[in-house]
């Protein structure tokens, strides 16, 4: 790739790349992000390359390996363009058929098409699949057009033209005005107005200004940022370049969590490519603007997603937050003004410049503009990355896009915002995804994690899970978080193990208030949210655990026991064979010995006639 010394040079290159791509009559697009690879996409790729390595196919078929397309349940995906066919759950052994039938003869391989769970019909086109059709895929659809390790793809798709426009015609203050006008708010969970943050950084006194991309994405169940960073790293770099120009920064960092090796790799490759082309470094595009980016790989600590902890980590220290009486835009990394934004926030910037803030602000609600990517997971049919306009209802996301419940059980709740967020019951599913609407209901938008729960999930246990998570991840510095969260967890443990008392509710609520109001950082301050929201909407489950020693969802081990229904039992003896604890014996049928039973559930999973079920345990008060 040539070194670009002016915006005109970029334009010329773009035209050349587009022209070259016109010569590829057939394009195969294989999604191969982390979950694609976990589902075997690399083997599919190998089979594909081998099959296409023939004189008649080699030069006329182009294979593009992309990042995550979002339809994670159906990975690996293979899209054929211009045939406009999308094949799901492709295996290496399917390649022969795909090439010989679809590619060479134009015939569809029916069995590889997506099946609509309601109608049973097979769907050929991506645009006709409800999962895709009902989204507003402004960001995530970009992954379709780029191989993350090929900067040419990015430029051919219009990449870096926003940067070129900014460097050619925009004064830094104007860039800030555009971002402000768009109404973009932070996508990491805080929802702080991005334009205002940029302005504060620009105006803060200090010799050096630093830019940080927060790719620590620690919320369990959230992987939107991974999808963007792995799939389209140049998009984030371009956003950062525009931001750096706007606030006057020459050095940026991408802080990626340790658990995302592919994202780290792809960003490093992208940075190298950008440097080679003069898009990072000195005198970018000949505009006298300098900016460079380094990748910092996290060490495995959720708390490093908090801005002051992240900056401490960048400084080579442990990730302990500090009080935010003075914000990081004024005093952050190395005590200098620092602009920290989430991956998705940066990703939104180039389009706001290219298409104008009015385009962005036209989508969404009064106070929450644009689109947001959610990681829809849990007990829903179509888990994956879903991008919708702000204002879309939870019901539309979970049922229309997500396809509704997974195992025939009814959906009970949805959790948004990760460990800082809350659980909302089905009765509130008509709420729109909007910063204020979700916060008022006791949850929050968060970074985008959206976990769907059916009736098999115990809400008390679920709240306890988040407290355990935060206990492990707390830095441990301040008393309310280190000690208070632990004491809350103790109470929930009492509830789940049949030792709870009514008096503990008041203590739990007092603790929640204390931890919320006195913790040093946001991790502690938001830690009680899962407990508070489940107490608010699922108090009946808590009361059942305490007053009746009963777990309505049948999940808390201490409150259930396993029983074999003799009427349904087929006497096959499988359960005896699979039980690792020798807890099932033959005695005029099969009987479970409750003393030996460890409630692992293997027998329940194995029993074909479903004769084994969980019933109320015998817990002595």
């Amino acid at each position: 790739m040539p070194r670009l010394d002016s915006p005109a040079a970029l334009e010329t290159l773009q035209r050349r790349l587009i022209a070259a791509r016109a010569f590829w009559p057939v394009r195969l697009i294989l999604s191969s992000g982390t979950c694609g690879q976990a589902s075997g996409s690399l083997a599919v790729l190998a089979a594909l390359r081998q099959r296409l390595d023939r004189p008649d196919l080699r030069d006329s078929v182009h294979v593009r390996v992309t990042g995550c397309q979002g339809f994670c349940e159906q990975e690996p995906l293979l899209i054929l363009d211009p045939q406009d066919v999308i094949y799901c759950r492709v295996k290496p052994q399917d390649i022969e058929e795909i090439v010989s039938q679809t590619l060479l003869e134009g015939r569809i391989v029916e069995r590889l098409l997506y099946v609509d769970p309601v109608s049973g019909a097979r769907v050929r086109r991506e645009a006709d699949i409800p999962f895709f059709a009902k989204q507003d895929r402004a960001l995530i659809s970009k992954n379709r057009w780029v191989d993350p390790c090929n900067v040419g793809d990015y430029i051919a798709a219009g990449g870096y033209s926003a940067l070129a426009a900014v460097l050619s015609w925009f004064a830094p203050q104007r860039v800030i005005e555009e971002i402000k006008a768009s109404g973009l708010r932070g996508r990491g969970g805080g929802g702080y107005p991005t334009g205002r943050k940029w302005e504060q950084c620009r105006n803060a006194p200090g010799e050096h200004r630093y830019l940080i991309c927060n790719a620590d994405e620690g919320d369990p169940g959230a992987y939107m940022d991974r999808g963007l960073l792995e799939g389209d790293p140049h998009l984030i770099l371009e956003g950062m370049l525009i931001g750096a120009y706007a606030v006057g920064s020459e050095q940026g960092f991408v802080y990626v969590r340790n658990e995302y090796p592919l994202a780290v790799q792809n960003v490093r490759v992208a940075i190298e490519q950008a440097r080679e082309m003069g898009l990072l470094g000195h005198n970018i595009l000949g505009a006298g603007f300098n900016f460079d980016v380094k990748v910092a790989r996290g060490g495995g600590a959720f708390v490093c997603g908090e801005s002051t902890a992240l900056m401490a980590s960048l400084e080579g220290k442990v990730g302990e937050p500090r009080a935010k009486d003075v914000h990081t835009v004024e005093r952050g990394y190395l005590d200098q003004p620092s602009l920290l934004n989430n991956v998705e926030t940066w990703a939104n910037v180039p389009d706001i410049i290219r298409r104008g803030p009015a385009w962005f602000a036209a989508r969404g609600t009064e106070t929450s503009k644009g689109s947001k990517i959610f990681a829809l997971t849990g007990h829903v049919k179509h888990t994956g990355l879903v991008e919708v306009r702000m204002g879309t209802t939870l019901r539309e996301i979970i049922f229309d896009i997500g396809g509704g419940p997974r195992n025939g059980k009814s959906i009970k709740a949805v959790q948004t915002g990760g460990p800082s967020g809350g659980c909302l019951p089905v009765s509130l599913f008509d709420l729109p995804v909007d910063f204020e609407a979700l916060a008022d209901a006791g949850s929050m938008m968060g970074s985008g994690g959206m976990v769907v729960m059916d009736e098999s999930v115990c809400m008390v246990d679920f709240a306890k899970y988040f407290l355990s998570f935060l206990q492990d991840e707390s830095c441990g510095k301040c008393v309310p978080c280190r000690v208070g969260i632990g004491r809350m967890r103790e109470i929930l443990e009492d509830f789940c193990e049949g030792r709870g008392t009514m008096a503990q509710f008041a203590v739990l609520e007092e603790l929640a208030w204390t931890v919320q109001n006195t913790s040093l950082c946001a991790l502690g301050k938001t830690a009680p949210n899962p407990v508070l929201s489940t107490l608010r909407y699922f108090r009946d489950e808590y009361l059942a655990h305490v007053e009746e020693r009963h777990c309505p969802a049948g999940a808390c081990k201490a409150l259930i026991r396993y029983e074999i229904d003799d009427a349904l039992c087929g006497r096959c003896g499988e359960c005896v064979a699979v039980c690792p604890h020798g807890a099932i014996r033959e005695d005029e049928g099969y009987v479970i010995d409750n003393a030996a039973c460890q409630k692992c559930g293997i027998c329940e999973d194995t029993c074909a006639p479903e004769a084994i079920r969980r019933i109320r345990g015998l817990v002595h008060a």
Partner: protein
Amino acid sequence: MPKWVSMIVDGATVRTPSGTSVLEAALEAGICIPNLCHMPGVHALGACRVCLVEVVAVAGSGPPRLTASCTLEAHEGLMVTAHSPVVVRARQNIVELLLAEAPNSRAIQDLAARVGVRVVRYPMRNKNCVLCGRCVRVCDEVWQSKSLGFVGRGHDRHVALPFNTRPSSCKRCHTCIDVCPMTVTPCPGPQKAPGICGLCESQRSMAQNTPDTCVWCELGRGFQCARWQMRGLKTGIR
């Protein structure tokens, strides 16, 4: 000449050089704000949350919020209260948590008496360290020896030497032991159920009558309140 700023603490106007923490300025002025992890001469940690104050909302800056006064820098026009019902409630809850961690420590019992904790609602543990960080900071910042530190995360956090071995940088000055609030005269322990000592009731009532004024109470000496530490530094009396 340092630049002086004027702020209001519990209704009293306090003038202090710019850059001083609200806690130190208040203590200098004789206002009592209970504290534990604070130590004059080293940087403020903000870890114990005992010195909380409520920053009274100034127009446009959002609802009142609680924050540690040791890490809050005094600035012109700041208005805080250290003894509103909200702050007192928060402080009592924090100290109650500490008391359940270390009921056999005189420092924590005295602190609990000072802030008015009357009941402990948690099962008792018996820790001998409350992670106030005085030892760590004195070694790191005063002696520049950097021989011990906070190791581990969350409930595993503890003070340790590297690889649990005394490093060569340690000069055996024993200041870490000297500044530890837990090594003050041991308390006979909880005399009243559940968990409250109660032997220093008289000191408690003396302090409770004038919650926002420092009366050089023995309770403060018990947990080495920063004002006592500052006095010790000035007069050499411990």
